[in-house]
């Protein structure tokens, strides 16, 4: 049972219940979208999977084995990579050093072509290889952040609002890259604010509000604006 499964997950920060009994699953070759308004619990779900948020109930299973209680670095080393919100690249390190950091999570039996693949997927990174990452544009930094996550050759890729603050043209680049990543057999869990594009791209999209799953949409629903709006307002 190759899958990343979230089962009845609850996350609580002090008095705030960020995620309530959420269940979802993502399998190799799939993109699963997670959309919803700010504060719906999307990022908290990703952080809970990574072992970086306080889980108060439920389970996260990777290929059948629970990830609860594991440290973020151990989750990463089991093949789950996160592209964090705000990209979080290391501005003072070079592009190449940022990518090499991704190797920290590489598992021993992998063939080690991760770096080349990141450069293939985002050619612009190769051009700026030895520049400080801080001088890249927002779109280039986002490509770097995704590339860095792929370097470790993960099985599961989690992305937290990768299109945030990007020009439409760059958003196209990012979404095209995600389609390629799915085609390569990775499982992608995509948190986004661009609901319509996400629904169109993903195999399934879950709408979250107030930490709860409200609705699940398929690609055929992408044109159904009324249904999307209703889901957000529900």
């Amino acid at each position, binding site marked *: 049972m190759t899958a990343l499964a979230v089962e009845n997950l609850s996350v609580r920060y002090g008095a705030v219940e960020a995620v309530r009994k959420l269940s979802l699953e993502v399998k190799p070759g799939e993109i699963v979208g997670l959309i919803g308004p700010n504060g719906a619990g999307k990022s908290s779900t990703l952080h809970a999977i*990574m072992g970086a948020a306080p889980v108060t109930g439920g389970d996260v299973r990777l290929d059948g084995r629970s990830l609860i209680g594991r440290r973020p670095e151990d989750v*990463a080393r089991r093949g789950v990579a996160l592209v964090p919100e705000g990209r979080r690249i*290391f501005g*003072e390190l070079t592009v190449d050093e940022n990518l090499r*950091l991704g190797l920290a999570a590489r598992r021993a039996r992998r063939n080690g072509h991760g770096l080349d693949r990141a450069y293939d997927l985002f050619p612009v990174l190769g051009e700026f290889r030895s520049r400080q990452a801080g001088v890249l544009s927002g779109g280039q930094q986002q490509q770097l952040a995704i590339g*860095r996550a792929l370097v470790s050759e993960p099985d599961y890729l989690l992305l937290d609002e990768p299109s945030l603050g990007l020009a439409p043209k760059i958003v196209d680049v990012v979404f095209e890259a995600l389609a390629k990543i799915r085609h390569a057999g990775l499982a992608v869990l995509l948190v986004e604010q661009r609901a319509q594009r996400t629904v169109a791209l993903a195999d399934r999209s879950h709408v979250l509000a107030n930490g709860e799953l409200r609705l699940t949409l398929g690609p055929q629903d992408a044109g159904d604006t009324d249904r999307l709006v209703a889901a957000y307002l529900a």
Partner: protein
Amino acid sequence: MILAFLNLTWPTFASGLALGGVYALMAVGIGLVFGVLRLVNFAYGQLIMAGGFALAFGSQWGFPNWAAILFCFGVVLALSVLMDWLVFRPLRGHSPAVMLVATFAVAFLLQNIALLAFGPLGKSAGALAILNAPWDIGGVFIKKIAVISVVTAAGCLLILQLLLTRTPLGLHMRAAAMDFRTARLLGVRANRVISGAVIISGLFAAVSAVMLSVQELTVVPAFGTQDTILVLAGVVLGGLTRPVPATLGGFSIGFANGILGGMLPANQSQYLPSLLFAMVIIVLLVRPDGLFTRGGSAVERV
């Protein structure tokens, strides 16, 4: 000539460089741990004190020099790792104030243990003291230990630089110092990075212990304490969060200490610490972001 008027001679200049080199190592040792733990280890001086006593006892027990130095390294490393396990790790993530006070407590605890165990008079640094004999370098007589200190410090810093820039562990340590949370999410192992910083920091403390014991001839329970305060002042002077400026800051204050120590007449040497700290205050008033920071701020980034 003005240098002659100031009583600045080549040997004085050399001991300034030597003390500057040792202080630079201490600054890096303190800075590495600060980088990954956001903890200013005030007890760094007590690591050096312990190393000094280890060297002195090793010599007293008739160890050959290499064995006494090895013993010193062993004691300092064991104590650093112990400090990390018993104090730093349990307190990780607490407020900087809590951690600073904790390291103060450790510092005074160790200093008082040394006072009880070894008495206030301290011990002679032992057989290595012969390194205070001079070498004749082109007609100028320079203490051997001064040359050895400068070369050793430069070598240690060079090796560290290579480690930080050429190895995965070094890259992980630099990333952890910039943004620990993100580094962990990428798979950087927190424990390994912290252990790496603590061990290198301990190694530098051991090297400093050997150099300082020989330079100062006697090891007392307060050994290393004033040096640590001066180094901390130097590190702040340079800019705490930036490795190179912090190192330069440590070097500068050690250099100033050595030079002024040589220039002041012997009966006025008690004014030396006041003079140094007055200089630190003036520099901080003029350049609050640090002496060696360019333009932008040296403020810790979130």
